[in-house]
């Protein structure tokens, strides 16, 4: 990775709406991965409003890993092998994302640390709603 990265730089933002279909895709993918063949997930808090309400939620909510993956994809698309091989990603879910909420994923370079082992890019990452509330927050690193 020869590109010069500086604090304050942002990767191109990704804006998506958290549709019921996106929640369903992820729920099905988890059960499909476990089964090793295509299956549909049983009703859960991510796919069924009644199950979600029974657990104190306003309705079905997105699996936090969906926004984590959107952030991870941005890092993969930009840094490729460098991120996949030796990167890191930490995300914390501060509030549930409900159906049809618009969300923007952001990766902002905070620092590029120099050490004997090379350079490590440190980025603040988050997903925010249209009113600017950060629902997923965290940090990523990539060895350049």
């Amino acid at each position, binding site marked *: 990775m020869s590109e010069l990265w500086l604090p304050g730089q942002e990767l191109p933002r990704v804006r*998506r709406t958290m549709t019921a279909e*996106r929640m369903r*895709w*992820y729920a*099905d*993918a*988890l059960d*499909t*991965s*476990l089964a*090793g063949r*295509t299956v549909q997930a049983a009703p*859960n*808090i991510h796919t069924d409003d009644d*199950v979600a309400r029974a*657990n*104190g*939620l306003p309705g079905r909510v997105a*699996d*936090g*890993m*969906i926004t*984590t*993956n*959107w952030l*991870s*994809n941005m890092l*993969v*698309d930009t840094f*490729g*092998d460098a*991120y*996949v*091989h*030796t*990167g*890191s*990603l*930490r*995300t*914390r*879910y501060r509030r549930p994302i409900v159906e049809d909420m618009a969300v923007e994923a952001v990766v902002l370079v905070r620092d590029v640390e120099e050490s004997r082992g090379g350079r490590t890019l440190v980025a603040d990452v988050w997903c925010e709603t249209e009113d600017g509330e950060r629902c997923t927050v*965290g940090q990523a690193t990539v060895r350049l």
Partner: protein
Amino acid sequence: MLGRWVSDLEVGDILPVVDYEVTPFLGRDYAHAVESVWERFHSAVGGDPQLAPPTLAHVDKLRVLAAACPEGAGPVARMQLEYDAAHHGPIPVGSRMSVTGRVESRQARAGRERLVVVFEVRDTATGSLRTRYRDTSLLNFIPEETR
């Protein structure tokens, strides 16, 4: 099996090793579901092998929890609070991975119980670490006193 439910787990519990093959289908299907368009998650490119998305570690967590606690989360749904993964090497499809976990902490805060489990994904053939994943979950979304 360690407990009936995940909510039975205690600090210090070592979750049994789960060994599985990372097939091309597993990597592709997960990449589709999370809308990744990086081609290396979908196929080999030139001389470079197809790789599994690093976030597939989340499924590895579920594999181990399913083996350790076959009846699922517990009396109420478990909700993830934090994902924290460090990548130590790529995971090419066709390789076998061995995954285990250790319960690091279990604490009550504001009526909700937090469970922290550290999972390690290792190449079965070489033992080399590929991903270390520290997962924090809420065992109950609704505070105990309000139920």
